[in-house]
């Protein structure tokens, strides 16, 4: 019997769901509202030098990879299952597209984290 790949994608969906439930709102608030508007946090919090320092060490790289990679796997997996709810019939092809996009985004993040510094 062929082994199913469902447990892998479901685990990544679950991990991304948990991470986004725990810290998604605070991350969106900080990077998308507080810092750009200079509200509660200074605008310079995310300046070039600080962000380069952050992604130059192993801990920073791990945080960025976990957030981008797991958010992508969570969001795209749920989006794939939503297609049924809006009346689009799904099959192996669409499944490959959605999971493939998450894999591609995660690999792109890995590549960028190695070249950035």
């Amino acid at each position, binding site marked *: 019997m062929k082994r199913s790949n469902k447990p892998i994608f479901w685990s990544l969906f*679950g991990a*991304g*769901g*948990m991470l*986004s*439930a*725990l*810290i*998604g*709102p*605070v*991350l*969106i*608030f*900080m*990077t*998308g*509202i507080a*810092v*750009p*508007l200079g509200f*509660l*946090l*200074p*605008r*310079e*919090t*995310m*300046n*070039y030098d*600080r*962000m*380069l320092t952050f*992604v130059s060490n192993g801990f920073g790289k791990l945080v*960025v990879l976990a*957030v*981008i990679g797991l*958010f*992508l796997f*969570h*969001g*795209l*997996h*749920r*989006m794939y299952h*939503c297609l049924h*709810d*809006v*009346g689009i019939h799904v099959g192996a092809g669409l499944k490959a597209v959605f999971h493939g996009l998450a894999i591609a*985004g995660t690999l*792109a*993040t890995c590549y*960028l*984290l190695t*070249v*950035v510094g």
Partner: protein
Amino acid sequence: MANVKTYVRPMGAWWRRNPFYGWYMLRELSCVFVTAYAVVLLVGLARLAQGRPAYEAWRESLASPSAVLFHMLALAVVTYHAWTWFKVMPKTLPFLTLAGRRISDRAIISAGVVAAVMSSVLIFLAVSLASL
């Protein structure tokens, strides 16, 4: 074969037929914002790798009204996702026992919400201190 005229129940706006369906769709909609936010960060990382001018242009674009509006919507919808995530946690986790008794649903949901609030406050404080 001739066309068979079977009745197909229309799907149009089925989520408006019952408030429960509406809340379900709002939860599912969170995936669009979670994915889009990951893409925003991925683009930021790419701009950072390209160098200072590219990164500063990206940072400037985050302050535009449409970007701020997107993040405000994302904040609301992802916060709702977080609440639903913890609300179903008693069903998605295996049975947990403590001293021979099952941990109540209420305790599991509260633990999730408390963990989210505490980690958010800690991250915010850490970033505030680092930005001094």
